[in-house]
């Protein structure tokens, strides 16, 4: 990792600040990042303007190589961009699974042709990707997956069923784990790529407890996949998948350190619970629990900073991603529980004019908030990883 002088960075910070104020549509200021798949699938005009501007600049994927249209910057520069976005009340419109996990994995394992084909549209935010990993019989135990790809000479023929595939109904492409050798559990899996428009690909939305349908069942029937869309070697997909899942964990672990928070617990409490004569949140029990949660949030951010600093010094922090994901998830889930509790009767709404937009956001966040301890490797699976790989506890 190259080190950057403070002077360089402060010039850069000025440049970024200026560019954001010239390009970021004011109508989007301080809106929570509309990075939910649904919102990305139906963007407003200003959201499109902003995505295209950031995409063309390459700043949505700041550290990726310039060869693919990205900015080729250091992590320090990337942090400056993130900080300036936050300061301006802006968000990074380039995201999704292509950015979080597929891109970094392809950079490592893809052929030159694959990288040239797939990375630029991710950098520009033109294409969204979906992750065809989980199956009805293969969730935490992903290696038991059964969807098979048969070798047909110049192509593979894929048959099977994936499930919980987030954004499959809106994605342009899918990175998909398939079985290419039924006799070898670990060394019989490959990673293939195909456009969602391929005949035989059918995505059926599933409704979630928060009312959204952000994921799908994905049926694959005689889907033809060109052989040049095999990533890595045939039957070598499991190692790549594990690497990809590590990128996913790391991204998920860091997600709340960069997000603009849609609401502040303290402000909600002042408004809905009130304050005492000393100006404190009126209910001491609630106050204590809110503070404890916010302290955990602050410590999580301190830990993220420490991990970044140590990574820069060459320490191996990948082992920490499991711990970070669980810590982040725990704090976030407690936060959303506290939020509905603070709202009282206004924290049980589902829809309609009796509830404000913020109140409904709190409820929907609380409901969706149950998911992060399940996806990306469940909480229990992360604890297994920590106890086996980090602590060396026996099987």
């Amino acid at each position, binding site marked *: 990792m190259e080190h950057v002088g403070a002077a360089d960075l402060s010039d850069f910070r000025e440049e970024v600040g200026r560019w954001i104020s010239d390009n970021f549509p004011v109508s989007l200021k301080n809106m929570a990042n509309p990075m939910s798949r649904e919102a990305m699938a139906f963007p407003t005009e200003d959201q499109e303007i902003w995505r295209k501007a950031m995409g063309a600049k390459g700043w949505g994927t700041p550290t990726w190589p310039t060869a693919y249209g990205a900015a080729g910057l250091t992590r320090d520069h990337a942090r400056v961009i993130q900080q300036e976005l936050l300061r301006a009340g802006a968000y990074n419109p380039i995201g999704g699974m292509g950015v979080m996990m597929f891109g970094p994995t392809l950079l490592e394992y893809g052929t030159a042709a694959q990288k040239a084909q797939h990375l630029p549209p991710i950098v520009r935010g033109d294409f969204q990707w979906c992750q065809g990993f989980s199956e009805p019989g293969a969730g935490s135990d992903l290696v038991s997956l059964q969807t098979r790809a048969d070798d047909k000479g110049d192509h593979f023929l894929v048959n099977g069923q994936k499930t919980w595939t987030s954004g499959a109904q809106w994605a342009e492409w899918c990175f998909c784990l398939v079985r290419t050798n039924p006799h070898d559990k670990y060394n019989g899996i490959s990673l293939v790529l195909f456009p969602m428009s391929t005949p035989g690909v059918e995505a059926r939305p599933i409704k979630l407890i928060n009312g959204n349908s952000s994921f799908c069942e994905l049926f694959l029937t005689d889907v033809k996949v060109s052989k040049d869309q095999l990533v890595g070697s045939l039957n070598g997909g499991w190692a790549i998948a594990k690497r990809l899942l590590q990128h996913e964990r790391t991204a998920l672990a860091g997600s709340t350190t960069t997000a603009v928070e849609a609401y502040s617990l303290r402000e909600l409490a002042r408004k809905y619970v009130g304050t005492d004569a000393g100006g404190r949140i009126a209910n001491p029990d609630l106050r204590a629990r809110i*503070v*404890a949660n916010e*302290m955990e949030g602050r*410590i999580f951010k301190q830990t993220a900073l420490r991990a970044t*600093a140590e990574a820069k010094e060459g320490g191996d922090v990948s082992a920490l991603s499991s*711990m970070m994901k669980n*810590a982040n998830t725990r704090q976030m889930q407690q936060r959303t529980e506290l939020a509905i509790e603070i709202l009282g009767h206004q924290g049980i709404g589902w829809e309609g004019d009796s509830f404000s937009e913020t109140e409904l956001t709190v409820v929907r966040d609380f409901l969706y908030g149950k998911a992060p301890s399940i996806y990306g490797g469940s909480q229990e699976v*992360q604890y297994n990883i920590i106890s086996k790989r980090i602590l060396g506890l026996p099987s």
Partner: protein
Amino acid sequence: MAILSEEQSMLREAARGWVDVRSPITAFRKMRDSGNRLHFDTDSWKEQAALGWAGVIIPEAYGGSDFGFLSMGLVLEELGRTLVASPLLASGLVAASAITLGGDEAQKQEWLPAIAEGTAIATLAFEEGAAHVPEKVATTASGTQVGFKISGKKHFVVEGLAADVFIVSARVPDGSDTDQAIELFLVRGDAPGLTRQELKTMDSRGYASLEFHDVEGQRLGSGGNGWSILATTLDRARAGLAAEMLGSATQAFYLTMDYLKTRVQFDSLIGSFQALQHRAARMFMELELARSAVEAALQAVENGASDMPELVSLAKAKVGETLQLVTNEMIQMHGGIGMTDEHDAGLFLKRARVCEAMYGNQSYHRNRYADILGY
């Protein structure tokens, strides 16, 4: 682990090496069982002083090395690993801070070089009751022609048995009952009218209650800022203690992991049971989080950051919670053997609860954090 300078890495390695060879936990046990009246081993303390630890935060002009608080934290963390009974925190960090921050030139000349050498032990006497409320001071100091006369009682004075000099908080009479009327005073250990009473605590370390009857004291510095010096000194004390607690928690955790990898029940290593594995993994997570908070607090002390008080409270609360969890689990996961005096688990548990009570417990610090940030 924070990014360390070369000097800091060397200091930590030296401390780790010394602790492992010269002061493993058996040394603590030996001291405890020896009936040692001071509750620390004076030869061991001489070795620590010879390594320069007592002068780590003392300016070079007064015989210290001025290595700073991160460095002091590194040493204290290592001492915490084997529960080394040492006056380093009380004298080399807490009292040295108060004198450096508040003393006049003559007072600094008189005490700091001796503290840095380890030849004098100084300590802060400020607690008066069961709860940690440092601004609640009933001890009085009345001015006379020659100096001040101190009267009152101090409780739970760390290294109060060994101290050569006390830094005592007291109220000056002209003032109100506000914090502004609090000043700090240097009182010699052999001053007439001062009596010390040993406090026997579960961690077998040296504490005393003090009684002052018209005891001669010298005001620290020129007065007027006693409370702010005390407040800053206490935050430094908390950050230093937090580092020690982190060391104890880390060690208690890894000793427990070792046991899970050796104890067999049901024809299996007990570490293979998922019920224990997940609790172990959670402890690992809390330890990593606590380490971040402690390092950030030490850094804030080092930089004199304006948000030091809140960061210190964040750290003391988090490391307190983590140490409590880990020491409880250490006993639980050891089963019956963990309940015995012969096993070290109990030593960690007992020290943990004393550290928890010192300089404000979790509840105190969560509440303080909330007050500072206006919740």
